[in-house]
């Protein structure tokens, strides 16, 4: 929270302006001679970004104020530059403005440069202190899904990267750009005592290479800068993905004479690959020829433009849309949104168009007629790795367009519009009216189902979601959690119209994602003055509760509601299911799956980490007022948590 108050937009504008100025100044013509960024872009009131941790003021926590006469902060012509100073300037040149980290000795050169160079010179970097590398990466994951651009997570070699590995896998499966830097003690002659050997590895990235889009271990500053730009380019070209640079400690710590510092390579404008024109024309012909085309979108809308395009396509065709929920692809209350009437739509389709659909098999197997045509448009057709099986079950399609869905939609729409202009009659209008009625029926069914058990204990998941929406619907809200474990009640009951109001789930369904990702997303939303809310499981939070401390420390406004069902509900269900199949019963299915005896006091836990908290809330009548109180805290720029004892899912 800044002193200006909760709802402010100036930071985002300042941030964008600053990046443009930086790129214009540093990269207007090819490779540009290196100038320390502190000199190239002097401090300006107009471009000053408000860091979430005050640099020269003591933050709540461990911040030690730097002396205001620090040479580091004011030296206009440094006689010596350290390798890591240059490295962080390269990051700033890429527009990376935030670093999340849990400290580690293999990157302390970089850490020191962030603190004493990048945080005190323009454009100022912000540093997020995380209590676990999994949180650092998840934070960057959530941040990227809101901003559309990567931030940096710095990791300790070996043990730090091992901690981070699951979060990297989540980002990989979720196709999210994350820029990772891991320290590397490569030179054995410069290693010291035993621990430095324990934390040294020749090829640390090998551990996670199966779910990195690209990695490198540069051994010179030129190598570093070129690889940084290459990594950024790969990371932000669809399909997005995490990238990693293993940066030797000697390269960070060795001094460099100012006149020997390498140039910073220019960052090209990256574009997304659109579908091959002939194939797109063919797809348009197939779609227009279909009697009842159905569109399914998963990780389609990388940007707000993607959602607008899907609306345009659907309205043009008056075709049903099923949002598989990997992103905010389609307005939740749009009449053509048939996500909650999808069985009917799928059963009568004669053409299924999958847009960045991860699991074509799951949506189509035994759900659409065998005679139905299938078209896929996805980047996964041209970029995939083989070891981890996140590519899902193979499904034959009639036309596979290896391209980015969002980038392909404009030409697809253009072709379809042309074909429709030559069509006589308009049967599509009638279909649209029927779909609108179906959508309304589905909404009514959802509301009736939500009313069942409305006043009962445990609180129903539907009521939890309805009460939350009631308190945020007049705000500029954003849901920063997935909804699968809440039976997608938000999509059933809420009205989301804007792309940033939902960002999908973890990607790999690796628990421990939400605590870090939600605060990363909330941090990004803070710059736009939005109200972020998350609904997460009790089991999920227990993987990484330290994220709450980071939220408190950095004053990240977020309402975090614990959907407390007393353990790992999905696994309880599966153990009981297996026990029934084996005729051994259900009674012992709780063993190993519940988090009771003692019940975890999440409110006390959150308060101990500096977060406003209430709960456990067990009476549905208490829920609305508790949410209202928590939101008043969030509006002051602070995180708040409510522990809600609710049904399983």
């Amino acid at each position, binding site marked *: 929270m800044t002193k200006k108050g909760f709802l402010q937009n100036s930071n985002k504008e300042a941030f964008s302006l600053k990046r443009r100025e930086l790129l214009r100044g540093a990269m207007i013509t090819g490779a540009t001679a290196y100038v320390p960024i502190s000199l190239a872009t002097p401090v300006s009131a107009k471009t000053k970004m408000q860091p979430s941790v005050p640099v020269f003021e003591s933050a709540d926590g461990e911040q030690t104020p730097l002396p205001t006469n620090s040479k580091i902060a004011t030296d206009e012509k440094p006689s010596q530059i350290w390798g890591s100073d240059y490295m962080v300037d390269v990051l700033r040149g890429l527009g990376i403005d935030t670093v999340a980290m849990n400290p580690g000795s293999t990157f302390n050169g970089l850490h020191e440069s962030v603190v004493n160079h990048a945080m005190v010179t323009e454009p100022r970097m912000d540093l997020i202190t995380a209590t676990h590398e999994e949180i650092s990466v998840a934070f960057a994951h959530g941040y990227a899904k809101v901003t559309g651009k990567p931030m940096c997570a710095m990791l300790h070699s070996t043990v730090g990267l091992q901690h981070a590995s699951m979060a990297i896998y989540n980002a990989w499966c979720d196709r999210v750009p994350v820029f990772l830097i891991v320290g590397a003690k490569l030179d054995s002659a410069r290693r010291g005592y035993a621990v430095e050997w324990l934390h040294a590895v020749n090829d640390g990235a090998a551990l996670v290479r199966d779910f990195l889009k690209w990695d490198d271990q540069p051994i010179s500053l030129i190598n570093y800068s070129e690889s940084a730009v290459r990594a950024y380019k790969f990371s932000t070209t669809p399909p997005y993905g995490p990238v990693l640079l293993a940066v030797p400690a000697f390269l960070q710590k060795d001094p460099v004479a100012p006149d020997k510092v390498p140039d910073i390579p220019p960052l090209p404008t990256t574009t997304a690959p659109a579908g091959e024109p002939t194939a797109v024309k063919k797809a348009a012909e197939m779609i227009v020829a279909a009697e009842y085309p159905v569109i399914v979108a998963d990780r389609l809308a990388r940007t707000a433009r993607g959602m607008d395009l899907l609306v345009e396509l659907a309205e043009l065709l008056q075709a049903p849309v099923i949002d598989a929920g990997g992103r905010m692809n389609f307005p939740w209350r749009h009449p053509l949104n048939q996500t909650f009437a*999808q069985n009917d739509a799928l059963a009568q389709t004669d053409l299924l168009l999958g847009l960045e659909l991860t699991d074509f098999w799951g949506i189509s197997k035994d759900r659409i007629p065998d005679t139905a045509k299938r078209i896929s448009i996805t980047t996964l057709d041209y970029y995939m790795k083989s070891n981890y099986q996140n590519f899902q079950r193979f499904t034959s399609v009639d036309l596979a367009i290896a391209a980015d869905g969002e980038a392909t939609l404009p030409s697809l729409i253009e072709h379809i519009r042309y074909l429709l202009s030559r069509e006589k009659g308009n049967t599509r209008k009638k279909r649209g009216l029927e779909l609108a009625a179906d959508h309304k029926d589905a909404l009514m069914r959802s509301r009736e189902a939500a009313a069942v058990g409305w006043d009962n204990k445990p609180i129903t998941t539907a009521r939890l979601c309805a009460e939350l929406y009631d308190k945020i619907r007049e705000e500029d809200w954003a849901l920063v959690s997935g909804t699968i474990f809440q039976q997608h009640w938000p999509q059933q009951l809420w009205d989301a119209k804007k792309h940033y109001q939902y960002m999908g789930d973890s990607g790999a369904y690796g628990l421990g994602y939400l605590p870090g990702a939600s605060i990363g997303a909330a941090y990004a939303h803070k710059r736009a003055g939005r109200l972020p809310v998350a609904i997460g499981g009790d089991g999920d939070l227990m993987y990484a509760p330290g994220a709450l401390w980071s939220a408190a420390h950095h004053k990240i406004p977020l309402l975090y509601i614990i959907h407390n069902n007393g353990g790992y509900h999905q696994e309880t269900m599966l153990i009981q299911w297996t026990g029934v199949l084996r005729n051994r019963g259900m009674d012992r299915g709780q063993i190993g799956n519940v988090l009771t005896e003692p019940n975890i006091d999440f409110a006390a836990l959150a308060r101990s980490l500096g977060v406003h908290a209430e709960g456990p809330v067990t009476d549905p009548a208490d829920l609305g007022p508790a949410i209202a109180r928590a939101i008043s805290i969030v509006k002051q720029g602070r995180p708040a948590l409510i522990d809600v004892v609710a049904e399983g899912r």
Partner: protein
Amino acid sequence: MRHSAYLSAATILLLGLISVYGKGFAAGNVDRGRDIYINAGCGHCHGTYGQGGGNYGGAGPKLAPNPLDYEVIQLQIRTPMGIMPAYSPTLLSDQDIKDISAYLSSIPEGKKAREILILNR
């Protein structure tokens, strides 16, 4: 989600069977039925109060209020359609099923959605 076609088919079949079996009678213990319903894991898919798992697909269909007759419920439990596992008499006796049926029958209509202001935003 991928199993929802099976579930829909099962639901349709169950609804159809009502006419075959006629109106049944659940002579069961409501409180015991609720405990069994919860402990047997019925609520995982069908909701704690039988409200069903929503409309997204994949979750269990709505069971209450106004549940199917005991005989139909028993048939589905013993020889289920879809992904629901079969519960043998060892795991759920006929009396257990009667109790579950009684619990489901006891779930009141409750408020209508239109009577709940915040459900109509």
